[in-house]
């Protein structure tokens, strides 16, 4: 059975705000990120990329590049190990290594712009890049498709000839649709017909990118004994190892991945891009090879999260209850299958208790980069559609949209769209907190002449994953504890891991020294992603700390010559026989030399869920009705976070997620040209929000402890990107009286809607 925990209140460390352990390195420029890493004899790699989105490769001529001074190796698809075209289960997902390999280095055809066709290693970066320009490739250009509607047309060009689609269990050939799934419960048709009112809407969204500031990078050494060492900025050293080994067709034990500091990922640094290429270049050149990706390629070939089309129809009754829901989701997968339709289906109705519901969802290939996870992948898109339509029906029926959401709110036992029942959730508490918030109860105020002001709100949901984590502890003689773990720290997680341990051991958070280590130095640990890290790796840390307490009780039993089971441990103090004998953790640590030597422990978990998470955001916008310019002037993010281990970094997750959502809502998009290329593949034209585009982001942390975690932690990182898009859509509607159904809701669209 799954262990459950009663929440506590009187924590000593949990809920405090210590300075993060890695902070000093990061504010002084000493921290080593992937691109900062150097090895003796290091050379640089670069990639030659396809200028076309869809084309057959007729020939590749590498001779000019090979002749250049300073070039040490050139590779093409011929140098890539060949894998069978078959879905392989990796435990936490599945992969077809043939596709994964050909995504990184094109074989017979290129299927997205920027698709690598060759790679070069040279003595410096500039020579490698110049050599890449000398690779001559002849192409036969094919028609490309860059949106789901075109990709599903009768005569659409087929992107992957060996794709066998699954249409509700039936195999389909010659298709761009890799999968069509359906969930349905109750009698949707009848309940829809019987509803007092029905509303429907179609929502279209453009693809967007995670927009991490740090470029992808990798450094690789392929040694003569076929041991491969990789240093990289990754969200998961172990999943990276799995992918690298699969693509290179070697055993996982031949690959050691050392995760260096990582400059943002948001899901986009789970897939590998340069790591296998750098390894092959290293094998061929006999030198360590480093690669750093240019920003245009980051937009064109990595990351994005799907755009697509979402249709929803809702039936509601006069008692303000949702009676029936039908939806259809078409998501872009990019040029390889495996988009985000599963999570989208899980999330679309999650905040609402609906008896009769159906979801059809299709995963559709387009000539764009293969999508990667992006913060609650699939959920912001469906939240935009669902939460917009909820507001529309409330507007039409003159219902208070917050009251409506309360009336229909999911609670423990409610089924989500895929039929699975919720365990303990805090949606009602979140809605109550929103209703009581200062923001919701403040008047909108008067905008300047020519400006219209509006307020919107929306909910968001993410299920938060669990999975595998491991942690090791070792006691120092000065009473500090070394913590070793495998979750790359992308936003301050070292601190919360140390706090898990410190709370158990009754010591200060800074008496625990967290270290993130390579794949040869710790047990398998899944990605930093899925809002799982504080939950699952924290749980492993908690377990390791408890195991350490038991180990130390044994040592105290030697010291006191008593039975270790009679020793108790409270607030950092071991005691025996009602405190007749007592010794602090620190004092005992100093005596370990004579009590059996170093004390170590380990914790290892494989967890099912980090507890379902719900949030609600409230936003006020000002819109210049002559230009369509939208300014976010006030923002509040409210979320059930379970228990906030380090509240500052929990608030930071809410704020950061909200702002990514704001950018997505207003300006961010893949603006595609007819030739299948992205026109705005730079930070200049991709237009992520700057500090000047935002107000303060207020946060309200609602704590409904998750019974599945010893301290009640719920995943928090992903929920906050779900509400902003619909909240802004609803605020725009409130301001100008017109609803937008497409993202980005940029100035052009706003002006068009007013015409």
């Amino acid at each position, binding site marked *: 059975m799954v262990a459950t925990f009663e929440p506590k209140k009187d924590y000593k460390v949990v809920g405090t705000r210590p300075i993060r352990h890695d902070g000093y390195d990061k504010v002084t420029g000493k921290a080593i990120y992937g691109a900062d890493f150097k090895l003796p004899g290091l050379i640089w790699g670069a990639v030659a990329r396809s200028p076309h989105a869809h084309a057959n490769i007729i020939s590749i001529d590498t001779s000019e590049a090979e002749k250049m001074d300073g070039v040490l190796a050139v590779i093409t698809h011929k140098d890539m190990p060949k894998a069978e075209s078959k879905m392989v289960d990796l435990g936490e997902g599945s992969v077809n290594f043939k596709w994964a390999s050909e995504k990184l280095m094109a074989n017979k055809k290129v299927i997205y712009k920027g698709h690598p066709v060759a790679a070069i290693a040279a003595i410096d970066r500039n020579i490698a890049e110049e050599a890449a320009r000398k690779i001559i490739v002849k192409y036969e250009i094919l028609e490309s498709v860059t949106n789901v509607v075109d990709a599903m047309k009768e005569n659409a060009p087929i992107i992957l000839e060996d794709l066998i689609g699954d249409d509700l269990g039936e195999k389909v050939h010659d298709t761009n649709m890799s999968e069509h799934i359906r969930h349905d419960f109750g009698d949707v048709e009848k309940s829809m017909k019987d509803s007092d009112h029905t509303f429907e809407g179609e929502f279209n969204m453009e693809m967007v990118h995670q927009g991490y500031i740090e470029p992808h990078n990798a450094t690789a050494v392929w040694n003569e004994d076929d041991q491969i060492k990789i240093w990289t900025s990754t969200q998961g050293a172990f999943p990276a190892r799995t992918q690298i080994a699969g693509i290179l067709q070697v055993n996982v034990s031949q690959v050691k991945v050392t995760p260096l500091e990582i400059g943002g990922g948001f899901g986009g640094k789970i897939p590998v891009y340069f790591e296998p290429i750098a390894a092959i270049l290293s094998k061929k050149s006999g030198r360590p090879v480093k690669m750093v990706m240019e920003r245009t390629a980051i937009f064109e070939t990595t990351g994005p999260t799907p755009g697509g089309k979402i249709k929803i129809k809702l039936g509601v009754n006069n008692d303000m209850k949702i009676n029936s829901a039908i939806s259809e989701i078409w998501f872009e997968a990019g040029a390889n299958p495996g988009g985000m339709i599963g999570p989208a289906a899980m999330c679309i109705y999650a905040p609402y208790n609906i008896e009769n519901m159906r979801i059809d969802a299709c995963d559709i290939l387009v000539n764009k980069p293969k999508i990667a996870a992006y913060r609650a992948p699939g959920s912001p898109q469906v939240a935009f559609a669902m939460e917009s339509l909820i507001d529309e029906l409330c507007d039409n029926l003159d219902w208070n949209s917050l009251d409506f959401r309360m009336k229909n709110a999911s609670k423990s036992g409610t089924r989500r769209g895929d039929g699975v029942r919720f365990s303990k959730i805090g949606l009602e508490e979140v809605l109550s907190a929103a209703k009581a918030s200062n923001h919701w109860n403040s008047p909108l105020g008067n905008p300047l002449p020519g400006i219209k002001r509006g307020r919107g709100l929306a909910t968001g949901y993410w299920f938060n994953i669990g999975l595998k984590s491991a942690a090791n502890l070792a006691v120092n003689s000065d009473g500090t504890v070394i913590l070793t773990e495998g979750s790359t720290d992308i936003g301050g997680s070292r601190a919360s891991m140390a706090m898990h341990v410190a709370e158990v051991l009754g010591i200060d958070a800074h008496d625990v020294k967290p270290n993130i280590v390579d794949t040869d130095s710790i047990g398998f640990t899944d990605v930093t992603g899925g809002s799982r890290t504080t939950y699952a790796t924290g749980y492993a840390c908690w377990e390791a700390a408890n195991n350490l307490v038991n180990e130390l009780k044994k040592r105290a039993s030697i010291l006191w010559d008593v039975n270790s089971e009679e020793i108790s441990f409270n607030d950092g103090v071991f005691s025996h026989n009602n405190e007749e004998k007592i010794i602090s953790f620190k004092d005992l640590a100093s005596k370990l030399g004579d009590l059996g030597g170093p004390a170590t422990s380990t914790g290892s978990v494989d967890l099912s869920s980090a507890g379902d998470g719900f949030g609600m955001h409230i936003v006020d916008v000002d819109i210049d009705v002559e*230009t369509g*310019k939208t300014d976010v002037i006030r923002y509040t993010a409210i979320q059930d976070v379970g228990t906030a281990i380090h509240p500052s970094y929990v608030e930071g997750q809410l704020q950061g997620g909200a702002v990514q959502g704001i950018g997505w809502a207003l300006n961010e998009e893949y603006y595609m040209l007819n030739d299948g290329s992205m*026109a705005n593949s730079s930070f*200049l034209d991709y*237009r992520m*929000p*700057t500090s*000047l585009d935002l107000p303060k982001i207020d946060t309200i942390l609602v704590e409904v402890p998750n019974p599945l975690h010893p301290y009640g932690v719920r995943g928090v990182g992903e929920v906050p990107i779900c509400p902003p898009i619909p909240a802004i859509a609803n605020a725009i509607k409130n301001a100008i009286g017109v609803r937008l159904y497409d993202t980005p809701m*940029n100035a*052009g669209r706003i002006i068009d809607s007013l015409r």
Partner: protein
Amino acid sequence: MHPFAYLAPTTVKEAVEVLNKYGDKARPLAGGTDLLVKARANVWDLDAVVDVKNIPELNKINFDSEGLTIGASVACCHIYENEQICDEYEGIVDAASIIGGIQIQSRAGLGGNLCNGAPSADGICPLIVNNAIAIIEGPNGKREVSVDDFCTGPSKTILENGELLVSIFLPKPKENFGSAYTRFIPRNEMDIAVAAVAASVKLSPDKNIIEDAKIALASVGPTPIVAEDAAKSLIGGTISDELINNAASLAKNAATPITDMRGTIEQRKDLVEVLTRRMITKSIERARG
């Protein structure tokens, strides 16, 4: 990036010689904020980059009885930090303080902005409405060209190979003169104009009649556009909403935008009308003091 040599002449003559020697394989480097981006994107394969910041004439801000001379490599920050420029050339300051962010403004200047010749350049339209003259030296000597005529197409200018923009001359503003520049961008900084408008007016002594006016549009054509009809419609008119609205509508007609990732034809034309109205109004406010 194609490897290039770095040359740092200290006189205009030297710079012209070396630019002439390399032809289109060399470019002057002032702020570098366009040059290095283009070199890195392989738009240009340069053999030499000629850093012109060590040439005294190109670094100077000089006021005399005729007007203001701004060296071609003077960075934006030196323009908006100069109190006299802020007093007399407000439209120029509007532009200098929104090009890029603070980091870009430490390096980029109006000279480079002009030579880069982007249709969306923030610096060119305010120069136009201030009747600026480009002072150019080349292998055949010195010439002066009105900024109105400087750009000939996207990233194309009247500069010949070997020619160097030395400075920009701005005539001293007349009494009751005011200028203003704004652009529409989706973000609040760090963005490229979807459409932009500069305007200047010279008012009668009673400040009720527009005696002279100039309007220039950016990002709505292959080059900055001088909206002559719009300006003419203002001249001699008594200030009124109708007068301004009419000029704005004429400016809209002068715009010849395309639809691209930054905006549509319709959106851009509408923006020109809105921004022209706002900039004429602002110029009048400034002229009235």
